[in-house]
């Protein structure tokens, strides 16, 4: 079972050095314990482009599909047997990166 752990924040400021060190240590543990699938940081929402090709002609718009104060700044995809394990990992992730996270299961 895989879970998307999104990091929610109100700025794209890079992680501070101590946060980065904590994230690296956490990632090493994810890999060692078999929970690691993928992770990555995202560019700011001002770099986003929306495309809608439902009408036959691709409409390209500048900006995110939704303006909000907080948005996804990076994410993990984790392997976990159930939500309890995923929540535990996610709470460690939140501590490591010093930001709020959201957990959603893949279907």
């Amino acid at each position, binding site marked *: *079972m895989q879970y998307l752990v999104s990091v929610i924040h109100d700025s794209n400021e890079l992680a501070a050095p101590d946060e980065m060190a904590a994230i690296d240590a956490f990632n090493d543990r994810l890999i060692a314990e078999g929970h690691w699938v993928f992770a990555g940081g995202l560019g700011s929402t001002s770099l986003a482009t929306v495309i809608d090709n439902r009408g036959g002609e691709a409409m390209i718009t500048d900006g995110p599909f939704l303006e909000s104060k907080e948005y996804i700044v990076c994410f993990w995809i984790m392997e976990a047997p*159930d*939500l309890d394990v995923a929540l535990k990992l996610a709470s460690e992730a939140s501590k490591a990166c010093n930001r709020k996270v959201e957990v959603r299961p893949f*279907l």
Partner: protein
Amino acid sequence: MVAALTRRFGDLDIAEEAAAEAFATAVGRWPADGVPPNPGAWLTTTANRKAIDRIRRENKLGDKHKEAQMLSGDDPPEPLGAIEDERLRLIFTCCHPALAMETRVALTLRMVGGLTMPEIARAFLVQEATVGQRITRAKAKIKAARIPYRVPSAEDLPGRVSGVLAVLFLVFNEGYLATGPGTDPVRHDLTGEAIRLTHLIRALMPEDGEVAGLLALMLLTEARRAARVSAGGELVALDEQDRGAWDAALVAEGHRLVRERLAARVAPGRYQILAAISAVHTSALDVRDTDWSQVVALYDQLVRLDPSPIIALNRAIAVAELDGPEVALAAVDRLEHQLAGYHAYHATRADLLRRLGRSQQSRAAYGKAIELAGNTAETAALTRRRDQLG
């Protein structure tokens, strides 16, 4: 399957419930444990067990003697059987922190308590459709997000049990002071279920102080049930209750638990303090023998843990007995901006004003309390008190 179960048990409701519960169990369990080799047979066996369990429970509810046994006397805790194990797993799944509080309550009552959707809707004054939606959404989340169907590990248990106790306390309170014009003022099905489930949690965690505290609190409250509503359907306040009508066995069991916690010499949590307050009240054979200084001291301890205005209001009621109604009224009036919409705030003020001889103001306060109270027996008692004012 429902048909086969109905044939066997001669009751469509039981059969439907049992089948639904068996499916829900499967939904919770199969994703984690794997689908059993013969799913159909597994479901039938599980449903049969659920039906038998429910029939046993209902027989118990109808039988006073057995009921007393169910509420007390499970000490020392017996080893848990397969059915109890399953109920515990269900409780922890239903009370999972990833579900919203009102959902946890509804789900626990439906899946563990076996209440119907209309019963749950009535108990919490919400539309039946709302309860249905909550439960459907919760089941979908349990399945898709894979909320596990198991009792948490020993290391996680202390963190998870407080959420379960909060749900059980809500269920108990709703049973004890049921809301809604058409409902019985005291719903024993809810209080009894909450006590039964708390016993189960205690068997799982016999050393946990708050579990013991909540159980003691429920038992000492339940012990006063018969004295709490008059023959005329009025709520009888603690100071006017016939103390001879209290259930001595439940009082003794509650006191034993409170003493056990005192002997443990560990700083008590809120359920333990509330239980201790209840123990002080139930120790007095006559209301005039109540040790009010002890009650106020316990409330002082509670206020430090939980600075909520409702605790402060209850503390003021005890202060009235110790330091007089004038001191208490000053304390109550300070809570106005927080509690103006709460019936007990106005009822307390009305009572204190009455004792101070300020009839006019007392009448107005009773009026507000009556307007806001949801419990039928409580409204009746408030109305009588108002009409007795000179």
